[in-house]
């Protein structure tokens, strides 16, 4: 963390950048927030630890509109999002100085709480430099521990790799965290009967409160005005009146980001109701891989996107009913 | 448990509208029409006070807040002057006599015609469609002439074609004793032999004495300059009333949209005395 601060201060001092986009410590051990730093004194609150899960790429849309260059710290997975935004002309490369920061998997406070740990006062072991595999949590109800792994966000278990896809320089080393198959859950659901599938999603989506957190945090959902906020399709809805609306919203949202979603996992991370929203996006990713060849959004800025290209031999839509 | 009967105590919720029948449509200007609305069984939909508004709705299309332009002293109907400027108003303009709409209200406060304004000399300053709420007050005042002092009306518009209620102005207001009407349009026009110039400038030209209470309504930019002019002329803020317009949905100060500072424009407004506006955060 100190290296990051030191380097940021240097780049501010030599005029390379006029502001730094990073994370500021919160008032609880686990809630750092994305923040700008412009002066030396601002860095007192600077933090980079396991709870800094927020993908800062999306903030670069706004930062690209500001005067001067912004130093942004991007984790490996965030760089895919940055690339994708670059491809869509939503961020400006010249406005960003990217320091790729290492990552040893990001933590999910919900998972820690789900382990029955509450009344949290402090957490140790979440720093990138900590070698420990265990988090030690001081709580109002005594000291608790849990394995770092068990507290990790789902997305980190299926990490695409710790290689930064775009950067000006790199700091801190990463630790490989992949220990699960990215598409296993999607495949499991695909294997269910229509009734079971329906019941599963009905239950999950039934929790949706249409708060739009998933959409607003999503680097691919970068529309200035979402179709669900405009009258272009008579689709502006927040009624939450019955299950159809959530389906409409989540299917269309997933469709709109199909071929653009880098699978950064922010939607699932922020959902207040813990809906595994990545299951929608990953379904499209899996289908795209299977039907049109493997494609990773944000890997290559110049690659043709799956939904804006085609081949003459593409599968027919009837494949949906014939393949299973 | 048994069905209880306690709900009978509740009157119909204020959010539930009434059906209104359009009984007359007057084309005031190329883009303003005045709609007369009655209850389906005849008569007025409700009683109101000058300056109050109502939510007019074309079901399935949209709903909007419009000031009631007819005077409460009119016992037969309510009128709305509506300018065509969006989906709803476009739709309303396509309606014909006999068509039905829904109306709920009246909402908001009103000009203090029975309190502060009583006995005062009144100066009405309106621009364009801004005459709509003031017309209600003017007719109320004219119908209760004995309760008020002098009445001066300064009304301006972009062009001669854009002056609303011109017939009434010329045939009633101008002919009423003790009422002075000053009309102006923004730019020269062949058909126009009256005054030409913006409302705030005309106001200063006429140079009204400060023994009056001013009621101002019109486009925001006009209000801004009229207020400045009035201050310049020596009026105090306590002598000036105007209306605010924000996005409104419920009309009863609960949905949160028109909240500004501790006021809800739809409930605590739309009529504000200018010194009250000064206390609001600058978000209007």
């Amino acid at each position, binding site marked *: 963390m100190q290296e990051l601060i030191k380097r940021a201060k240097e780049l501010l001092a030599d005029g390379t950048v006029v502001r730094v986009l990073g994370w500021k410590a919160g008032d609880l051990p686990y809630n750092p927030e994305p923040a700008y730093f412009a002066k030396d004194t601002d860095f007192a609150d600077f933090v980079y630890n396991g709870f800094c899960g927020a993908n800062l790429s999306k903030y670069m849309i706004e930062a690209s*509109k500001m005067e001067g260059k912004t130093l942004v710290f991007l984790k490996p997975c965030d760089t895919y999002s940055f690339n994708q935004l670059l491809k869509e002309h939503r961020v400006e490369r010249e406005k960003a100085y990217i320091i790729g920061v290492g990552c040893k998997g990001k933590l999910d406070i919900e998972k820690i709480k789900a382990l029955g740990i509450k009344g949290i006062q402090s957490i140790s072991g979440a720093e990138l430099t900590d070698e420990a595999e265990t988090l030690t949590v001081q709580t109002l109800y005594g000291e608790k521990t849990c394995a770092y792994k068990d507290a990790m966000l789902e997305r980190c278990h299926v990490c695409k790799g710790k290689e930064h896809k775009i950067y000006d320089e790199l700091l801190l080393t990463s630790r490989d965290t992949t220990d699960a198959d990215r598409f296993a859950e999607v495949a499991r659901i695909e294997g269910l009967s229509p009734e079971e599938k329906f019941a599963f999603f009905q239950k999950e989506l039934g929790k949706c409160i249409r708060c739009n957190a998933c959409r607003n945090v999503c680097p691919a959902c970068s529309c200035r005005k979402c179709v669900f906020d405009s009258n272009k399709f008579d689709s502006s809805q927040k009624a939450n009146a019955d299950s159809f609306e959530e389906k409409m919203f989540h299917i269309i949202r997933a469709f709109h980001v199909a071929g653009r979603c880098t699978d950064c996992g922010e939607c699932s991370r922020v959902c207040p109701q813990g809906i595994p929203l990545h299951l929608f996006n990953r379904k499209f990713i899996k289908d795209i891989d299977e039907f049109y060849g493997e494609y990773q959004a944000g890997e290559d800025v110049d690659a043709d996107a799956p939904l804006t290209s085609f081949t003459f031999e593409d599968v027919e839509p009837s494949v949906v009913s014939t393949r299973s | 448990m048994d069905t209880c009967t306690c709900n009978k105590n509740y009157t119909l919720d204020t959010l539930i509208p009434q059906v209104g029948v359009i009984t007359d449509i007057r084309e005031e200007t190329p883009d303003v029409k005045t709609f007369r609305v009655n209850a389906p069984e005849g008569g007025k939909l409700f009683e109101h006070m000058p300056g109050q508004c109502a939510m007019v709705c074309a079901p399935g299309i949209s709903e909007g807040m419009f000031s009631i332009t007819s005077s409460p002293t009119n016992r037969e109907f309510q009128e709305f002057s509506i300018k065509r400027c969006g989906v709803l108003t476009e739709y309303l303009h396509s309606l014909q006599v006999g068509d039905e709409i829904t109306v709920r209200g009246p909402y908001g406060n009103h000009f203090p015609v029975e309190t502060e304004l009583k006995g005062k000399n009144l100066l009405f300053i309106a621009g364009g469609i801004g005459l709509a709420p003031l017309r209600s007050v003017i007719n109320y005042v004219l119908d209760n002439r004995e309760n008020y002092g002098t009445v001066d009306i300064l009304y301006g518009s972009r062009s001669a074609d854009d002056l609303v209620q011109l017939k009434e102005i010329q045939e009633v207001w101008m002919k009423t004793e003790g009422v002075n009407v000053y009309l102006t349009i923004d730019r020269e026009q062949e058909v126009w032999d009256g005054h030409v110039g913006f409302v705030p400038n005309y106001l200063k030209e006429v140079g009204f004495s400060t023994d009056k209470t001013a009621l101002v309504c019109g486009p925001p930019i006009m209000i801004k300059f009229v207020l400045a002019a009035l201050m310049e002329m020596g009026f105090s803020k306590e002598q000036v009333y105007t209306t605010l317009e924000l996005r409104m949905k419920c009309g009863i100060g609960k949905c949160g949209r028109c909240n500004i500072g501790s006021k809800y424009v739809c409930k605590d407004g739309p009529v504000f005395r200018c010194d009250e506006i000064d206390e609001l955060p600058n978000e209007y």
Partner: protein
Amino acid sequence: MQRIGVFVCHCGSNIAATVDVEKVVEIIRQEPGVVHAEDYQYMCSEVGQAKIADAIHEKGLTGIVVCSCSPRMHETTFRKAAERAGLNPYMVEIANIREHCSWIHKDVEEATKKAVILARAAIAKVNLNAPLKPGESRVTKRALIIGGGIAGIQTALDIADAGYEVDIVEKTPSIGGRMSQLDKTFPTLDCSACILTPKMVEASAHEKITIYTYSEVEKVTGFVGDFTVDIRKKARSVDMDKCTGCGVCQEKCPSKKAPSEFNRGLSNRSAIYTPFAQAIPNVPVIDREHCLKFQKGKCGVCAKVCQAGAIDYEQKDEIVTEKYGAIVVATGFDVIKLDNYDEYAYSQSKDVITSLELERIMNAAGPTKGHLERLSDGKAPREMVFIQCVGSRCADDRGKSYCSKICCMYTAKHAMLIRDKYPDVNVTVFYIDVRTPGKNFDEFYRRAVEDFGVNYIKGQVGKVAPQPNGRLLVQASDLLDNRQIKMEADMVVLAAAIEPNPDVRKIATMLTASIDTNNFLTEAHAKLRPVESPTAGVFLSGVCQGPKDIPETVAQAGAAAVKAIGLLAKDKLLTNPCTAHSDELLCNGCSTCANVCPYGAITYEVRQVNDHGIREDRRLAVVNEALCQGCGACTVACPSGAMDLKGFSNRQILAEVDAICQ
């Protein structure tokens, strides 16, 4: 909200017999927005159109719904009627209650109900219609003809005679096409070359016509009136300007093993060659695949013998880019491959040939100098069998489902010519049906049977088997006498089906012209617009549109020319106003729309916008309305819904959906 008038057409009894028209009117009259509704016998008639105009005037209608036949039939009619009455023509929508309703349903109640729903959908749409105004685009006064056969030549001549520049692009080294390979033509038996050659000469000499032989269309962009075409002039290796056409090079060329395309591979030609004697231009090309110089690096005989110094081994393909207002496709046909018809032993015996090969054999300039002889041993045949419908009118996917149309007549011609020239040769024709509609056609066929003694047997040939004695055993069934036939023949001639030139698929894609499942180009309307492609500015000439004989081809070529001339004669074209447009407040500037636009109609610019009080510079999509053809691909690619299509807007389509699902 519009003031809508609804007009329901009886179409005589076409609609009224199954749809209760009065009831539709009665129900629709109650719909919100509908201020006028009436029915009439024939809405498309003058009286019907006048009713629309009257209602527009009297009721101040702002939107019209006509419930009638398909919009493909009369949309334009009603739009024009509305326009004459002062209404924007795009405020008219059609509810198709004939093709999509009365003609396919029998139950009156059901059809009436559906007609009401279709009318409601149209009303819902027209409520959201906005007046549209077509833009204008210029017309380049030059036509391109793809294919230099008789169809292409005729079209080119007709257009050029009208005073417009015409370019012909021909893939082979010479114009002339299939017709140049024919010997005699039915039903007059005049010599094909004698009537074709003057046309070829006329075309090449015409000052308005430029001929690109040995060339192919490489790329087409643009749209009606303003196509830009890249033509690849393949390297001929011979300088067209220097060559005198003396022919010495072909004589001296040591490589003479290349199969002659012109003779359908029945003879060989040299590596440097002109396809046939009357070729235009009379300039040879070097077939680099068979040329020793190109293959082995040594030889160079032709260069040595060429007095004019026209041989140029270094010549490269050249791309010519030219602008055209109209394009005529005249790519013609080929006979099908007979791989699927092993039973006829085509690949096993040299004496089983196609009719087109027989044409070459019968031709004096052909491989046998016009002598009828077996290709296996050069002997004169005594017994000849013709088999009809090989690959035509085929029920399964071995062949073509359609009738190739010309085979009956050319077979009669062949039979007659053989019997005339070689009276001792017996000719037997196996047929399914003999189809001879056409001027003097049936008379011609009857002459073959009655005057020339050709033996016609209605029956199918099951098998042709080469015999050890060198003859061919033909097994067939005689359907009229209901008996099996086994006979030996010396030659068997197969009337192989014809199919569109295989290159047409590529060309159609470039032109965005549609083709049917048999690769024939689709006409804009099967009856009323038979020589136009649905793609504006593209016209169809000859067999590329469907099987036809020479007179029909020439007639269609002329018709295509007239259509093209009609277009070229205009100075300006009105463009389709149903184009995409982007809402600047919603546009993300992400380029997704541009990535799917087939016309390159979307570009980006940075512009300041005022988004409800926020002023900022934004990268925004801009649609070039002259280029946009209105497909709508961009509207779906756009995630924010900024892109929409005029005339088929999101909200219009959704309104139709709602009305239907109500």
